[in-house]
C-alpha cells in the first residue's frame, strides 16, 4: 500500500478489468502529484495489483457492482480521508491527466462546487459518428429532466469540492449514474461550470466503453428509480 498521499486533490478511478492500461493511467496522474484512488470493481485480472504498483491507493469490491457504485465508494473514501477536491477520471486511458488541473482551477476561479468536463466544448478525438449522435440525444434528455444547461452528459471527467462531493449519493450502480450525478447537482442547487476537456478514443476504450444498446438500459434504470423510494 502506498504512503498516505499529501495532496488535497484526490483522483478517483473506477476500474474493472483494466490491467492493460491502468498502470499507465495511474502513473500519469501520480506524476502530477495527485492522490490517486483506484476502486477495483471486482476485476478478474490484475487491475488492483497494477494500480497499486503504479502508486494508487486501491479499494477492492469483492464482486463487480458497476461504475456508479465504484465511484461512490471512491468519493466516500476520499471524503473520509480529508480530500479537499475530488476528481472522477475514467480508467481506460481516454482522459488526459493535464485536464485535472484545469478542472480544479475552474472550481476555484468560478467559486463553484462542480466542474464538469465537456468534450463538446473541448475535443473528442476519433469519436465515432453514432456515439456523437447518441450523446447528443442523452444531452437533450438530461437538459429536459434536470434543467441543467450542459453540453456533455456522460463525461466521466468531473471535479467537485468537498462540499459538493458530500451532496452526492449515487444509487445507480451502473451507467445511469452519470445522469443521476447531474440530477443530484441540480437538486443540491450548488454552482457548477462546464470546462472544455479532451477525450481521446482508442480501439481499447471503444471496446470497453458503453454500447449504443446501453442507452435503453439507462432509461429503464432511471425510470425504475423514480418508481420507488
Amino acid at each position, binding site marked *: *500500500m502506498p504512503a*498516505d498521499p499529501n495532496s488535497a486533490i484526490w483522483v478517483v478511478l473506477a476500474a474493472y478489468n483494466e490491467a492493460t492500461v491502468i498502470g499507465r493511467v495511474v502513473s500519469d496522474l501520480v506524476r502530477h502529484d495527485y492522490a490517486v484512488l483506484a*476502486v477495483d470493481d471486482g476485476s478478474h485480472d490484475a487491475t488492483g495489483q497494477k494500480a497499486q504498483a503504479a502508486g494508487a*491507493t*486501491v*479499494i*477492492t*469490491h*469483492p*464482486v463487480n*457492482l458497476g461504475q456508479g*457504485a465504484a465511484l*461512490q*465508494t471512491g468519493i*466516500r*473514501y476520499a471524503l*473520509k480521508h480529508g480530500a479537499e477536491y475530488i476528481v472522477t477520471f475514467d480508467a481506460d486511458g481516454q482522459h488526459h491527466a493535464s485536464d485535472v488541473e484545469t478542472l480544479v482551477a475552474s472550481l476555484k476561479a468560478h467559486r463553484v462546487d462542480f466542474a464538469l468536463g465537456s468534450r463538446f466544448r473541448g475535443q473528442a478525438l476519433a469519436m465515432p459518428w453514432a456515439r456523437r449522435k447518441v450523446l447528443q440525444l442523452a444531452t437533450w434528455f438530461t437538459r429536459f429532466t434536470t434543467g441543467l444547461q450542459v453540453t456533455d452528459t456522460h463525461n466521466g471527467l468531473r471535479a467537485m469540492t468537498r462540499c459538493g462531493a458530500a451532496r452526492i449519493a449515487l*444509487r445507480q*450502480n451502473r451507467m445511469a449514474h452519470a445522469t443521476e450525478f447531474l440530477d443530484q447537482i441540480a437538486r443540491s442547487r450548488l454552482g457548477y461550470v462546464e470546462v472544455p476537456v479532451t477525450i481521446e478514443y482508442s480501439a481499447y476504450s471503444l471496446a470497453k466503453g458503453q454500447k449504443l444498446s446501453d442507452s435503453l438500459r439507462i432509461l429503464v434504470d432511471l425510470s*425504475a*428509480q423514480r*418508481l*420507488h*423510494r
Partner: protein
Amino acid sequence: MIAQIGLSILLGGIAIYAWTEWSRAPAIGSIAMLATASGLYLVWLPSHATWLADQVGIGRGVDLVLYIWVIISLLVMLNLHLKLRSQMEFITVLMREAAISEADRHR
C-alpha cells in the same frame, strides 16, 4: 357465486399486498389498488363489465376482467423487480462499507 367469492378473496389478498407496498412504491401501490378495486367492482357487477367492455371495444365483460387481472399481474412483477433493486442497493452499501474497512485496515 362461488367463482365471485373465490376471485374476491384473491383480489382482496392483492389489495392487502398493494396497501403494504404503498409506502415503499406509492405509484405501484396506488395503481394496483385502483386495478384491484376495479376488478372487485366488475366481478360483482358483471352486467356493468359487459356494458363497459362494449364501450371500450373489448367485446365481452369477462375479457375485461381478464385484462384487468393481467394488468395486476404485471404490476406485481414490476414491484418484485423494484424490490430486487432495493435489495441490490442494500448489498451495495454493505459491500462498500466492507471494502472501505478492509482498505483502512491495510493502511
